[in-house]
């Protein structure tokens, strides 16, 4: 498992979609392409926007199918973050 700590990259309010896209393209995708799994660690993140979660996750689901969620795991999410991730995962299915 490759742990990706998001707080040092995006701060406590994860809203910057450019950063989300960078994380997806430059960190998550290379791991998945090698057949690996990634843990997205939301420790110390208070809140995220739907736009951030969409830029981070939607294309992974679109390209790899919903089973990508067996290889992309979320840790240390508070309730707000969980709800927003669930929203994106819901509408992408």
């Amino acid at each position: 498992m490759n742990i990706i700590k998001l707080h040092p990259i995006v701060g406590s309010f994860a809203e910057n979609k450019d950063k989300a896209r960078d994380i997806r393209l430059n960190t998550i995708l290379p791991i998945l392409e090698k057949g690996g799994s990634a843990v997205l660690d939301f420790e110390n993140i208070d809140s995220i926007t739907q736009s951030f979660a969409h830029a981070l996750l939607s294309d992974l689901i679109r390209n790899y199918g919903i089973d990508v969620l067996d290889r992309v795991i979320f840790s240390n999410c508070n309730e707000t973050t969980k709800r927003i991730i669930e929203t994106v995962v819901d509408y992408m299915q």
Partner: protein
Amino acid sequence: MKIHLPNSSFLGNINSFLKSIDISKEDVLEITSNEKWISVHPVIVCLVASLGLEVRQRSKLSNPIICQKFTAASKHYFERIGLFKFLGLDSEMRINSHESAGRFIPLTQISESMKLTKFIEDMVPLLHLDPKNVKPIKYIISELVRNVLEHSQSINGAVVCAQYYSKSNTIRIGIVDSGVGITKTIRKSHIAHTDLDAIQLALTPGITGTTSKEGGTEYNAGAGLFFIKSIAKINRDFFIIYSGNTLYKLLREKDGKIIHLFSNPLDDKHSKDITMPIWNGTVVGVDINLNETEEFTSLLDQIRNIYTNSVRERKKDKYKKPKFI
């Protein structure tokens, strides 16, 4: 152009102010104001500031902004919130720096992504709010300004300000741009005959100007405005969006009435006016009553259900089966 700042104008009664804007003579901006008292929603302050930026850039005159001296007792508010500085005018008001600054976010121009991130970090302490009330405010400002940066093509980016009103325990937020407007953006991927059609589409979950595909692209989901309208609706607050000749206003729901979210904004309790002076860009104003603020997580649950169902229904409508003969 001529603008008169009235005695009192907030989202509930903003129509008459917007109708009074004179958009002729694009190279001059004349500002007058009520002589006794001026109390206006921050979206109006943003709108005046945005027009000022436009006129300064467009006009060849050395003094394209003519501002009648403010005499109202509340005139210092406009100095504090940064309107005169924004317009490049000397108000001749001197504010003592030791005076309480109040709970507001001064006028700020945001034209790039990293500046938005910094702005959000810096603005929260200015409002002195309970942390549970901060989440929806940060959310709204981030999503609305990102919309401007991504879609408006405005060289000036977004003009933002906000104010906390202790009497009503409400945060009022304004975000204005002078870009291409919603209709031009939506028409890149959808059919919109009128500005109202375009606003209706922009507020519909899963529709974005960047693609005709349901659910958007890898970068845009077409959810931002729907989320914000929904936050306002669930909290029984006003929300306005004005672009081209059209003003759409989400009206407040009555206390005690069960709130239902709709994917079609015209199904919400609203008013619309398609005879406004043409605004080249987009104006958004929203109120957040902190007494009514529902837990952000429960609010997100409600929004998620309607968003997901709406996108699924439309996907189903477009789904085609093979024809076997």
